[in-house]
């Protein structure tokens, strides 16, 4: 890690701590920003580094959310009874009960999503190219629709999560901290993993899967590990997000295919897929644009988002980091052999 990167990390950590202290009204927005950074970064494991464009990663987000909700409630109450009352009965959770439930819920959400990704991976990874994208999109839509039909977990009406014991300021700071910690954990894990042989192997799968397999890379296992990492973090952050929002419901909050499900792809593409920092930068810019249009273009915000998505994909596909890489390759430690390019011939 060179000095520039260290300085950048220190600056980001400082901004992350200073943000909610100086602008307490925006704490929730900052927390969502970290959620989005995590989503874009974990999408990039498959989408950018491995070449498997998933449109259904949001499935794990919702799965983690629901698993954590079930764990948190089932530890102390009967889930069916709790959901049947539609939030009319509010059982009191003691502080200790709440935090044990939350801790186990987040871990359980992550692990549950991990197991689900293993199961889905068994049949999904046989699909390639656009079929993988369509198949995973179908998975996410089906997950949302089917979750809405299970009465045990509240059906289409949803579940209201247990109350946070404590002040509203403490509550928002607490969840902000959780989102930040998970985003940072995911970032450093990815940073480390891209520098290992695993990173090389998944890049090989992206470049030519058949050749990678012929070279002796167990492609299915690598693909499942890649998706598993993404699923684990999405499950954890889903559990945190569910508790932060306080009310979960299948189509809009837990499995929002048309919003977060597509946003994570758009963010990674905006920043530049296949790079470590691209999704982070993309998520930051996207969130900024989204919040600005939400505030100043009320009613037209979705139109603006659709336009941004189209313009980004049609005219600016390589993303910011990709553009920088072709423009200033030296900055990224890429050595260009000038003797082979057309510039040299021109001279």
């Amino acid at each position: 890690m060179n000095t520039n990167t260290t300085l950048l990390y220190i600056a980001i950590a400082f901004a992350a701590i200073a943000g909610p202290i100086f602008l307490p009204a925006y704490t929730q927005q900052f927390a969502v920003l970290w959620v989005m950074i995590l989503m874009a970064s974990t999408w990039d494991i498959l989408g950018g580094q491995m070449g498997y464009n998933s449109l259904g990663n949001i499935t794990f987000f919702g799965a983690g959310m629901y698993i954590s909700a079930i764990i948190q409630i089932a530890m102390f109450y009967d889930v069916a009874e709790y959901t049947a009352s539609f939030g009319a009965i509010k059982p009191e959770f003691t502080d200790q009960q709440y935090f044990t439930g939350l801790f186990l819920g987040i871990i359980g959400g992550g692990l549950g999503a991990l197991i689900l990704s293993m199961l889905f991976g068994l049949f999904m990874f046989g699909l390639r190219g656009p079929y993988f994208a369509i198949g995973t999109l179908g998975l996410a839509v089906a997950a949302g629709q089917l979750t809405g039909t299970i009465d045990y977990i509240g059906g289409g009406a949803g579940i209201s999560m247990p109350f946070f014991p404590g002040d509203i300021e403490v509550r928002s700071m607490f969840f902000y901290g959780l989102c930040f910690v998970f985003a940072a954990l995911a970032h450093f894990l990815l940073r480390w993993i891209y520098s290992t042989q695993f990173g090389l192997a998944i890049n090989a799968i992206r470049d030519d899967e058949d050749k990678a397999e012929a070279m002796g890379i167990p492609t299915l296992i690598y693909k499942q590990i890649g998706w598993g990492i993404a699923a684990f973090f999405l499950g954890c952050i889903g559990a945190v997000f569910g508790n932060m929002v306080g009310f979960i419901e299948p189509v809009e909050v837990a499995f929002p295919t048309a919003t977060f499900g597509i946003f994570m792809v758009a963010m990674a593409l905006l920043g530049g897929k296949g790079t470590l920092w691209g999704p982070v930068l993309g998520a930051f810019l996207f969130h900024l644009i989204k919040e600005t249009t939400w505030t100043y273009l009320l009613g037209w915000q979705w139109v603006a988002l659709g336009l941004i998505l189209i313009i980004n994909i049609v005219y600016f596909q390589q993303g910011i980091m990709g553009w920088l890489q072709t423009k200033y390759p030296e900055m990224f430690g890429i050595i260009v052999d000038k003797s082979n390019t057309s510039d040299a011939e021109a001279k």
Partner: protein
Amino acid sequence: MLDNLMLLFVWAPVMNVQMILEGIFIGAVFALGAYGLALVWGVMNVKNLAQGDFIIMGGYLAFSCHQLGIHPLIALPIVMIAMFMYGWVVYLTIIKRVIDQDMFVSLLATFGLSLLMQQVMNLIYGPEVQIIDSHMPIYDAFDGFVTIPSVKILSLCLAASLALLVVLFMKKSRTGQAIRATAQDPRAARVMGIDTNRIYAFTFALNASICGAAGVLVSIIWVIQPFYGIVYSVRSFAIVTAAGLGNLPAVIGTGFGLGLIEQYTGIILGAEYQVAAAVVLLLAVLIWRQIQMRRNRQVVR
């Protein structure tokens, strides 16, 4: 669920007639949308996720015509021409630039388009569910157990004649031949003097026009709402994936099949499973294909 099964097969088997008719009526619309998708997918290798929104847009155009006092039958050609022009514009602005890119890019670009279209329709027409009441007679059969609105029969005939027209156009006309040639080998077609760029634009516009016609039919026999488009897109994908690309009779057959499956899941399992049925069909086909393919995929150990 058991009660519903008993109702269908033991107590009132005549209800099956109603279900099958409903399935066929709505399946015709699915088949039209899926045929347009298969056309675009096969000719230019673009996966149009905005397919459903084209259908809904056609429906809303017909709805506007209806408000102006134009009968849906006359509105049909107007909508088709309008959608044809719209499709051409969409091709020039968006599709043209993603056509030679990775297939995922076209998927995402059209997803963005779909988002844009549903929101603009939402702003113009509002999120309410709309229907065109064409005041046509409703026939009864089997002592009132089965009702057949004549407007649905009309829409089935329209869909059938439209499909026939398109098939004839593709087989006989000069442009149709050029489209098929481009689908087979764009390079060779260019060598033969076909302006492939124009053919692509025409194909996409034709698809939009077919979708527009399907939308008119949806608006007279069912309901339209700005956000219903994505369901039609998923259905079209399910049908085309299940039937296979270049297989036109299978696409139409699967369209009717999906219509029937949706009707039956709706009555047996409950209406909330009706949307899930199409998605589950898509997943089932994808998984089944892989089990079939597993034989061919053997690794030396």
